[in-house]
């Protein structure tokens, strides 16, 4: 039943830019197997009537088999799916800040009566308080889900198990980098789902996302393929199955109903809502088992992961290299003896040439982790190791990169800020 329609040969062919796969095989057959060509032409002329009858049914059967494979995969996982409901809480900070306030718009406490135009999601996305999805991680009551489901900081979290039991859950820990969260309920003997072996996952294979975001017992199913592996510095598998708040926190399955990853919203930009802008757009991310297993032990111990910051703003004048423009008061780089005007040359051995490189190199590394930097400090090239900070730890006073002007010993800060990695 596996690989009923397999996209991999087609993907290989297009990746090698050899054109449409059929033309390859045609040409090869014509050039190298003329008798075969004759045979094929005769047999096709003779058998065309018989084939005409069979062809349509063949493909219909293939698609019917696809349907029943999807059904089977979904029913295999449904014993481990849980529905999460939250009560209370408010819109998270970054739903309100961005566009709404930048344009001087006032946000009231009660946004349920406000018009909802989600065409520019991310900038104005309002988080719903509907049910969300989680998956059993261990039989003793650990539930794995997405931190997106708790951005409202709810007062009460309940979990509805597949057997209908409804329990109050504790939020044990959340990972705002990988957008995962771990819940604990007082239960035993939960059905633990099977995970797909990580090295068996390939681009082009079918992917099925399930979620309970519409309520009810039967999960909502979307289907696509695995689009890419090792996205987001190895933290995510990319899929084109439609992911949205309906299935964030739910599993992404392979054709056999085994879990490939946990569906989460994910993007480079910071913020708890980052990545929701891709909902239903054919760009979705799921955290794979290898990464989940690394994180869960820490989450279980009550550790939270936050985005890591260097606490610097780059010098907007320097275009061809990463020159520090300003340092936050508590910047880990300042502790390492860096000053405005110094340059960052490489992060963890990877050369960085501009702001984008720098963000790409550190955005999935959580606060508290160490990063090895190659820097040019006061004219000499040295290697330093710094610990990324949480944004709350960075005091906002800045040390600026400006040549000292004796006539103006205390310059005023400029209005606009350069981007801050």
């Amino acid at each position: 039943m596996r690989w009923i329609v397999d996209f991999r040969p087609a993907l290989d062919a297009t990746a090698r830019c050899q054109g449409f796969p059929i033309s390859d095989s045609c040409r090869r057959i014509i050039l190298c197997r003329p008798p075969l060509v004759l045979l094929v032409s005769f047999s096709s002329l003779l058998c065309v009537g018989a084939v005409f009858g069979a062809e349509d049914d063949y493909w219909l059967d293939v698609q019917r088999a696809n349907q029943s494979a999807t059904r089977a995969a979904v029913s295999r996982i449904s014993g481990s799916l849980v529905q999460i409901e939250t009560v209370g809480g408010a819109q998270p900070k970054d739903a309100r800040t961005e566009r709404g306030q930048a344009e001087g718009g006032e946000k009231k406490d009660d946004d349920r009566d406000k018009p909802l135009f989600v065409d520019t999601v991310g900038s104005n996305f309002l988080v719903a308080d509907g049910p969300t999805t989680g998956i059993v991680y261990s039989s003793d009551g650990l539930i794995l889900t997405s931190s997106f489901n708790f951005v409202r900081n709810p007062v009460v979290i309940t979990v509805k198990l597949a057997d209908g039991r409804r329990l109050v859950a504790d939020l044990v820990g959340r990972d705002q980098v990988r957008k995962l969260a771990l819940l604990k309920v007082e239960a035993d003997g939960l059905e633990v789902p099977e995970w797909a072996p990580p090295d068996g996952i390939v681009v082009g294979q079918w992917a099925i996302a399930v979620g309970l975001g519409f309520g009810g017992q039967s999960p909502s199913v979307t289907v696509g393929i695995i689009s890419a592996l090792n996205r987001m510095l190895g933290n995510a598998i990319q899929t084109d199955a439609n992911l949205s708040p309906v299935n964030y926190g739910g599993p992404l399955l392979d054709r056999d109903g085994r879990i490939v990853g946990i569906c989460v919203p994910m993007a480079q930009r910071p913020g708890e809502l980052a990545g929701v802008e891709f909902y239903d757009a054919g760009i979705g991310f799921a955290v794979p088992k290898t990464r989940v297993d690394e994180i869960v032990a820490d989450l279980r111990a009550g550790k939270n992961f936050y985005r890591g910051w260097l606490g610097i703003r780059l010098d907007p004048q320097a275009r061809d290299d990463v020159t520090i423009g300003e340092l936050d008061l508590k910047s880990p780089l300042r502790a390492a003896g860096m000053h405005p005007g110094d340059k960052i040359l490489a992060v963890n051995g990877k050369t960085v040439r501009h702001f984008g490189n720098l963000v790409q190199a550190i955005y999935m590394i959580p606060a508290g982790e160490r990063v090895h930097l190659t820097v040019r400090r006061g004219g000499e090239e040295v290697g330093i190791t710094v610990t990324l900070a949480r944004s709350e730890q960075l005091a906002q006073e800045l040390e600026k990169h400006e040549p000292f002007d004796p006539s103006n010993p205390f310059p005023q800060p400029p209005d606009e800020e350069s981007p801050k990695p």
Partner: protein
Amino acid sequence: MTHKATGRTSDGADRGHLGRRPTDRGHPGRRWGRGLPGRKLRCASAPAKVRENRAALRPSRPAPWAGGVLIGVVALWFVQPVLGEGFDRAIDAASARVVKLYGLGAGAREGYGTGIVVSEDGLVLTVLSLLLDGRNVRVVAPDGSLYHADVIGRDEKEQLALVRLKPEPEFGPDGQPLPPDRSKLPTFACFAEGESTSLVPGDWVIAAGNPFKVADGAEPVSVALGVFSTRAALDARFGVNDFPFTGEVLVIDAVTSNPGAPGSALVDLDGRWVGMIGRVVVSNATRTQLNYAMPVETCLAFIERTLNPHTALALAEESAGEPYSGIKLFKQGYKRGLAYVDKVARGSPADKAGVRSDDLILSANGKQISDLTDFERVIANSRAGQTIELVIERNRKVITTSLTLEEQR
């Protein structure tokens, strides 16, 4: 999931108006060309280098094989990839029964949309929209003929509309004016019945319609492939208002929340009519735009009501007194707080159900209660005598109880 839509546009539209069944083949010769089962396509391609070498060995003797090569090319032309891949039947069935609608638009632009032919004599089902509000509603049939139409039925709650085509097409498929004596409508291919209950989450569905009015005249409409995701009660917003329809809809994963797409036909793998794409709304459960279809049963009931208004009136006569639960929720000024129970009237339905003050109501009749207005709405939408399943949190325990509403005294 449009990536998997095989990119094939239907050629079903240009032969649909004669009322053939979806399995009829318009061009048998071409159908043969769809050729052998797809296993043929799986020949692994040789590495590029090997092929070059082989080609280099044989440059000098093309002539003896020219005839064979020619026949082979012709034969392989017929053994081209099977583009339908089993979806042809559904695509043909849907796109032969879908019409393009034009009418009143915002500003100088004309409005556009999609409709489904539901009777042989030219009844078209679509969604309520601005384009129907003008005097000049125009319908382009699958063969490209243009008809004028009258709106004969509207349902504000379900946001559905029924339109009847008027005879005398002004222009033929070739754009030339037709003689004015054509007073009879042709027989249209139509969906007369359908069933959505057989759908299981994960089943293929195909939506055929004219989003962004990409197709024009006799051009086949756009088809999109997706799967049926789930059946869910609609709880959504339309612009700034609550969307009036709260019945069950079919959620799909093909993206249909686009202008012009509402009114598209949704069919299953066998080409059976299962639903019609509804207006673009934002779900309250997820705050995302929904891709959904009104179930065919809802559509057919609306058509029945519109065509036989008398039976519908008789059914609508029922009423009951104001419902009363005996629960007073904790209110703090104008703020919409959580649904904490403040007081329970003695002897009231809530008292009998064991509800106590300081309980937090989590859900009622399966609907999540996010704040006290949610609960009040559930009660207001119920009738006296109706039983409501309550889920309550009390001292970190979840309690389920049922409460039978009484008439307000």
